[in-house]
């Protein structure tokens, strides 16, 4: 039963828009799926104690590179997104390789990657002649807004299926990582880098692999976000707030569980929408007040969700 359950759930999700296609719930589902992919990408490395606050930067690079290539060179996102992922991976390599090489770990790593988020934000704002600065950036509409070539669709169902596919791929990558040697190597590294190195784990290389995977996935999801929203601004796709938002949602949902970040995305986005619809513009900011308090409470009262002991991890994986 447990073997076919994911396939049944997947089939049900694919079938959903053909049964029920109200635009607003569809929009919410698409947004949840895109952010779920993003949070899952973060958790791919976050679950091994590699707490990166640079993912806001990766998302921003992914989104802006794709949009800039499309507007300035007419490069279709089908090629633009791979290019963007490559750029993200190169940036991740430039930051992460020296970090791992020089053993910058724990909160030092978090602070260095935080600097990356801040840099990406500042570069986007500073090069306002190209990126539009704080005012944001819009990919040009092509062929009335619906085109496979431009990866632009006005139809919500199409977007839902795309987002579902991307989300599925993100989950699949995380699933594969969880069942690979990489995972055991990284768990050993998370416990004790020196001991792991002594048993023959190539610490720098293994950490680099997971970082590149996670960063490229985040860049991809960022590009997708841009294609769906058709508008990006520095504050919504890069910077520290976005990075913290990823950490927050993943932590609330649970980073050791495959569907944890997805649950986190559901909780955070639905809460924000509920407040927005229920209380109108008067509720601006309340969602973050609640997130902030929840994040603090979760970390204080459920610390094993974040950085647990080996036993807690294994117990969790077995029951999950």
């Amino acid at each position: 039963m447990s073997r076919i359950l994911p396939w049944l759930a997947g089939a049900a999700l694919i079938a959903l828009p053909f049964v029920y296609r109200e635009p607003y719930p569809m929009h919410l589902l698409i947004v949840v799926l895109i952010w779920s992919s993003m949070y899952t990408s973060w958790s791919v490395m976050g679950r091994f104690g590699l707490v990166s606050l640079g993912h806001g930067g990766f998302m921003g690079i992914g989104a802006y590179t794709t949009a800039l290539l499309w507007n300035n060179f007419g490069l279709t996102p089908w090629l633009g997104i791979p290019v963007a992922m490559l750029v993200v991976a190169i940036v991740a390599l430039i930051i992460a390789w020296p970090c791992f090489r020089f053993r910058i770990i724990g909160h030092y790593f978090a602070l260095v990657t935080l600097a990356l988020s801040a840099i990406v934000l500042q570069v986007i704002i500073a090069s306002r002649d190209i990126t539009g600065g704080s005012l944001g950036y819009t990919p040009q509409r092509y062929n009335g807004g619906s085109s496979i070539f431009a990866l632009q669709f006005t139809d919500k169902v199409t977007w839902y299926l795309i987002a579902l596919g991307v989300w599925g791929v993100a989950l699949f990558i995380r699933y594969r990582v969880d069942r690979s040697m990489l995972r055991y190597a990284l768990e050993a590294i998370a416990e004790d880098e020196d001991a792991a190195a002594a048993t023959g784990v190539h610490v720098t290389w293994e950490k680099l692999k997971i970082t590149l995977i996670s960063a490229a996935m985040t860049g991809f999801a960022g590009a997708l976000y841009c294609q769906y929203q058709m508008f990006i601004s520095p504050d919504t796709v890069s910077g520290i707030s976005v990075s913290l938002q990823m950490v927050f949602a993943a932590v609330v949902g649970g980073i050791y569980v495959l569907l944890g970040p997805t649950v986190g995305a559901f909780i955070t986005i639905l809460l924000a929408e509920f407040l927005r619809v229920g209380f109108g513009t008067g509720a601006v900011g309340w969602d973050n007040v609640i997130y902030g308090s929840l994040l603090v409470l979760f970390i204080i009262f459920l610390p094993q969700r974040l950085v647990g002991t080996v036993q807690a991890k294994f117990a969790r994986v077995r029951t999950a």
Partner: protein
Amino acid sequence: MFDIFDIYLLEALINGVLLGGVLALLALGLNLIFGVIDVVWICYAELIMLGMYGMFFLFKIYSVPFLVAAVICIAGVGVLGVALHVLVIAPLLGAAPINQLLATGGVLFFLQSAATVMFGIDFRNLGIRLPVLEVHDMFISYARLLAFGAALAGMVVLYLFLSRTYTGTAIRAIAQDRQIMPLMGVDARRIYIITSAIGGALAGLAATLLVLQYDVHPFIGLTFGPTTFMICVLGGLGNMVGGFVASFVFAEIISVSGLYLDLEWGYVFAFGFFIAMMFAKPQGLLARRA
């Protein structure tokens, strides 16, 4: 005597020094907290933001005299620092450092959005225009000069406190060895609370100075926060002298590149320099080679 180019450069250099003084004050508070409690307050700049709002409301709305308002603000943010320690940090003292960092990240979200909810997103300022000093055709803002002076004074007072008083000695001792000092009869909890109060008060002092130069809005913390963390890490977390040096290096980079390009590029260069230095000297600017 000077040609025009040199004057602008000199002006940028002087403004860099003045900016460095304020950054050094910010870094000092964070470094003190880190050195003693071994915790990074990611929400440090948000405390400053609240202090700036405090100044705005006291001075502008309730017309409290500036100096009185400043004292109330410094004390108030000090109390906030203690509250932050007791409510958030104390329950997490035994946890991995990254947990505390993320918990204060939650506080950052909380304070930022609470300020949005309470005060709205309008930019507010005290409406004080301090005169601009003109020396040799260079324009130096009086507000910056005042901030620089007050920041230096604050640092000297802190230095005297840490080196001359009994409590200060205990704080330094705890910073050196967290395990042994409680065995020597130092009440670590009391020291932590005092340190948090001082760290908060330094944020309060910074707030009273920054409110003279910047408009306050709920996201102002994001302007100072990242810069402050990078300075602290650049100087070596917990290393107060390193943080002091790093502040001026950072401020000069921001100020001088801001002269040739945009101010934002100044930040970009400074942040880039930070990342480059992390790889060259991961333990901080003044670290000895291990």
